[in-house]
């Protein structure tokens, strides 16, 4: 029974004194904010890159063809290198001032990362819409972008949204990497608590449990959302 007592005490120390539970909460808030805005930025980047890649490939316009190549280069580099290396490069490249807003730092780092993955998600979503839809839109006189906007993308969304939700869940976990540039996310706050109590394992276990709870909740929410989407299906 002795060890149970020790265990209880070490977790108590990691949570209660000096209102340490607040540290986890503020870290969690940072993690969720960065993940949310990063995916948002990722969606904006990803949408542009995906449309360029799908539309620019066979375009007659040399500028569009060039931009499609740039898009391919971007997704290849981002998906082919570790996120921690990307974070260190982007951080030291752009955010040289120490007092930059940490949420912005995280959003930009992970937004650029997420954009590459989201671009592939959106590209696959667009390509899942039958070719005839584009032809029908064009035959009515819509130009390419209008057809995308009114006809293709609204249909692609049904395939894109579940994968996008998944991307957000991945991002919640992935942002833990940001602690290497001293952003106070959940992982970093757990490390702080560990350095105060001289006992790193209990705060890390607590952080792990919080991550797990959040991802389970998000998965559940996505499931409900997906069922709603397929209910609206008229096929």
């Amino acid at each position: 029974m002795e060890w149970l007592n020790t265990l209880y005490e070490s977790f108590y120390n990691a949570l209660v004194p000096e209102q340490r539970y607040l540290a986890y909460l503020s870290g969690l808030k940072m993690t969720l904010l960065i993940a949310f805005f990063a995916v948002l930025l990722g969606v904006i980047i990803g949408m542009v890159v995906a449309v360029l890649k799908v539309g620019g490939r066979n375009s007659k316009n040399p500028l569009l063809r060039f931009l499609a190549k740039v898009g391919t280069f971007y997704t290849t580099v981002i998906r082919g290198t570790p996120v921690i290396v990307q974070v260190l490069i982007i951080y030291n490249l752009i955010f040289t001032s120490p007092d930059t807003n940490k949420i912005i730092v995280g959003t930009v780092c992970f937004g650029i990362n997420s954009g590459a993955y989201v671009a592939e998600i959106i590209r696959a979503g667009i390509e899942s819409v039958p070719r005839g839809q584009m032809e029908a839109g064009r035959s009515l006189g819509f130009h390419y972008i209008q057809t995308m906007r009114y006809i293709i993308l609204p249909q692609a969304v049904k395939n894109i949204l579940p994968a996008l939700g998944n991307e957000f869940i991945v991002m919640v976990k992935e942002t833990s990497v940001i602690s290497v540039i001293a952003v106070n996310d959940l992982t970093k706050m757990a490390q702080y608590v560990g350095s105060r109590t001289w006992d790193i394992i209990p705060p890390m276990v607590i952080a792990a449990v919080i991550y797990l709870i959040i991802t389970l909740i998000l998965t559940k929410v996505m499931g409900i959302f997906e069922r709603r989407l397929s209910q609206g299906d008229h096929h």
Partner: protein
Amino acid sequence: MIITKNLQKAFGDHQVLCGIDQHIEKGEKVVVIGPSGSGKSTFLRCLNLLEEPTGGEVIFEGVNITDPSCDINKLRQQMGMVFQQFNLFPHKTVKQNITLAPIKLKGISQQEADELSKRLLDRIGLPEKANAYPGQLSGGQQQRVAIARALAMNPKVMLFDEPTSALDPEMVGEVLELMKELAEDGMTMVVVTHEMGFAKEVATRVLFIDEGIVKEENRPMEFFENPKNDRLRDFLSKVLH
């Protein structure tokens, strides 16, 4: 209305259209027949540049639409197209399918759109389906809605790409009937089809395309009664029983 001059199309090394010269006059109903892979659908799709010709010219109402500087989107508004696979927008209701282009491209008001959709749905005999989704309709009904969608832009010519080939046999009639009515109203039509009965009854001119060229063209009477080209004779003997 539409003139093609030495129209050519190649997919890679494969030459599909080997020079087609055609004059399609206002009010004509041109029916295009031919074996599969002959290039008849490609010919039709070149008329509104859904396929980019690799040679020759397409002139629509005096404008060379194969010239890269012409605004093809503006011209396509005047050329309705009906597809084999209907290609209705599955995420929109029948009414929205019909009114999307007029609202976004012509800027008509919601009230005008409502009237337009009502008028067209009455015309195709589906007034009760305004708020249905395409997935809830039969194939024949979907194709009729697709025709209404094309008509909503008030086009000068209608292009039909095998409009009945994807339909169950019992639904072919209703679509052909609607096309006949359209023809009687004086619409200029170019129809790629395997429906020889329709060609005989409605066409003002029938083209036989084979191996990428027009092998024979004539008024339907002579075309079917007295075909001169060997390939056409062979083709007709197989499709007319």
